[in-house]
């Protein structure tokens, strides 16, 4: 049972990835990121069945941070910048989606090449992780608004977190918390920088941020 539930949630994550690339409304992006954060929070409990005290703590911390605190910060930055829509991306919405889908297929093929430990054999974790990383990467490279790039970075971190699930019992608690803390402080500093960009350039469009060149 647990296998099919985990795979189900991973499929949800894959669908969310496609959604990220489809929408250009930033508010919806933040909602989706929050949802993905919650899903990631639930996954560790599902994979390991028995509730060990540190797995539970990590699950709660992930849900709290990725589900509400970080999206809250991003929303506040969005409200301050008074922008609604992402401007026309570098290569258009549909091509990015196609690239995202192609990326997912590639990640599945790539995952085949990597042998897995017997108990993880059926899981979709590696493809999901790589696909999420690629989605985050696409958001970073094709979108222009600074806040969308921050969200792209967040999705990238989620992808890596998914892969981290395989090593949950080996990874010491301190490091997991350290990773989460770093993510939180990262987004906190990014939001401060977004505030300063908005104050200085009166817009979050990173095409203005290209005057340092050779």
């Amino acid at each position, binding site marked *: 049972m647990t296998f099919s539930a985990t795979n189900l949630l991973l499929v949800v994550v894959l669908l969310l990835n496609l959604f990220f690339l489809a929408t250009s409304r930033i508010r919806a992006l933040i909602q989706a990121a929050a949802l993905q954060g919650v899903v990631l929070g639930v996954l560790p409990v599902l994979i390991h069945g028995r509730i060990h005290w540190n797995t539970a703590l990590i699950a709660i911390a992930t849900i709290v941070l990725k589900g509400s605190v970080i999206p809250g910060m991003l929303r506040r930055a969005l409200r301050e910048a008074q922008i609604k829509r992402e401007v026309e991306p*570098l290569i258009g919405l549909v091509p990015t989606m196609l690239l995202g889908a192609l990326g997912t297929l590639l990640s599945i093929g790539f995952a085949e090449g990597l042998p897995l430990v017997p108990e993880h054999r059926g899981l979709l974790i590696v493809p999901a992780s790589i696909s999420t990383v690629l989605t985050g*990467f696409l958001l*970073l*490279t*094709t*979108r*222009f608004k600074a806040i969308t*790039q921050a969200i792209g970075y967040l999705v990238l971190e989620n992808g890596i977190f998914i892969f981290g699930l395989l090593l949950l019992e080996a990874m010491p608690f301190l490091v997991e918390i350290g990773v989460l803390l770093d993510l939180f402080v990262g987004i906190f500093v990014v939001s401060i920088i977004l505030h300063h960009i908005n104050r200085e350039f009166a817009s979050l469009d*990173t*095409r203005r*941020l*290209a*005057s*340092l*060149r*050779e």
Partner: protein
Amino acid sequence: MSASVSPVAIEILAAACIALSGVPGCLLRRVPAAGQPTATALNGLGSAAGLLGLVAHARGGDAEIVLPWALPVGRVAFGLDGLAALFLVPILLVSALGSLYGASYWSGRDHPESAPRLRLWWGLMTASMMAVVLARDAIAFLMAWEAMALAAFFLIATEDDQPEVRRSSWIYLVATHTGTLCLLGCFALLAHVQGSFALWPRLASGGSAWISTAIFALGVTGFGLKAGVMPLHVWLPGAHANAPSHVSALLSGVLLKTGVYGLVRVCGLLPDPPLWWGGVLLAIGAVSGLLGITLALAQQDLKRLLAYSSVENVGIIAMGVGLATVGRALGRGDLVVLGLAGALLHVLNHSLFKPLLFLVAGNVLHATGTRRIASLGGLARTMPRTFVFFVIGAVAICGLPPLNGFAGEFLLYAGLLRATRVDPVGWVWAGLAVPALAMVGALAVAGFVKVSGIAFSGSARSSDAAHAHDPGGSMLAPMVALAGGCVLLGLVPSAALPLLERAVAAWDPEIAAGTPSLAQLVPFGWISAMGLLGIASVAGVATLLAWRRPESSAAGTWDCGYARPTPRMQYVDSSFSETLVGLFDWALRSRRASPELRGPFPSRAHFATRVPDAILDLAVLPLLGAADRGFARARALQRGPVHRYVLYIGLAVMLVLLVAR
């Protein structure tokens, strides 16, 4: 000097003393007059100690010491052998005399800010040149080599507020750094073949032929850049023209010789070098000689002319080294002795007459403030003593009999003529090298007749030249010493015999058995005799003329009865050398800015010819410009938006994963 103190130790102490000669000058800045005498005194003391060390070496024989100094890698080893001793003589002499000359030429009063610094770098440069010649370990050699290069850079850039000085010091710096990198590669290969960093080993076999060729190529390029042989001479004219005159004297008199020292050592690496090594050096020498002197002929700036003539002289030295290497390849001991002795004697001679000529140029610059030959004239009458020194230097540099230039070229000719009779292979190069050397000699005569005729004779072409006057005693004293050296070595060339024989023995210890010694190969006695006979006959004819006591009434130059001749009607340097520059135009590519005269009454017109440096202006700079434009296009990588930067990271991961499967 008891034999207990090894000559190397004396040399190192002397080097240390000279190195510190500039320091007191810098410390007591408040008393500008005090710095110079202490610097010159310390320099002189160091040189004297150095010469004493050479005398001790002459008696004591080769010596080597390893200082207990823990370099990060390699060891600080110094050694003194015949070859190093010979190269030390010019370093010590020219440095001491140049410092004496610089005392009043570049005194603390006229140049309060740059004089102390110049003396500091002067001392450091001399000391590091001594260390270069003494070093017996690759790391110590490279350290001394770069210290010398940097000190020379700071000396050249003394007046760095002028853009021309900055440009030429920059070209020098790039050239010298290229040389250092070549040497880096060469010593690394040597360490790979030989296993240790010990210097100037006699390699049984140079590893694979390919590696020994690479060692030779890198060594010749690295040391050739410093010696200033033809294609690698690009930095030399600019550096010599823009440095203070006594610095140019040190540069061309001695710095080029460290490059030659390196060439000689590299050629001595293999016991039986391939024949083409010698051939390449002979060819480089001939080309440097010919094109060097023709470019000198075409120059309109006195110090650039002398700089190009240094290229020519280094070319002649390279021909000597090439001949010696050919001799080693063929196992002909007499060619080795004659070639190397000819080259080394020319090194000694050149380090006497070239600094003399540069100090003459210094006097002229000091008195008239200009280096342009065409605006000088009549200096023979306004600066009689400088003119005498110039004539001595000019006769010596053209290799004309009574003076020392002749002895050096005589050895080279003897060697080349013997080489023409080597039947299997040697005849081609030698056969062509002799006429090349002859032409170089004749062109040198043309070049220095031009300078003596245009710059010194005739009437002054500008007011500066008219008001010139001879400098004070302290500037003339070193010139007397150098001129004396030229005359002495000219009349008694056998004085340098012991020094030369020890150097040849150090270079090629297992010389072919039965090789006659240098004294037997070359009739030094006859050269001295003919020199004295020449002077006697001149004196005889002069007394005959004086006995006749013809009353000589003075009048203006008849000049075919031309009514009012003006100084501007005299021949000018570019017109003097026009025939020869025309003859060599395929190499010189001279530029001519001549006005087109239109209309019945043509307006004021200006005619000028300019000879660019063939290699620098027509090959190196355009090439670098093209590379610059190519790099500019490549810099589009950093165009600014952050997505492109993140894309690079993604691409890097994917490509590496694909390629490095």
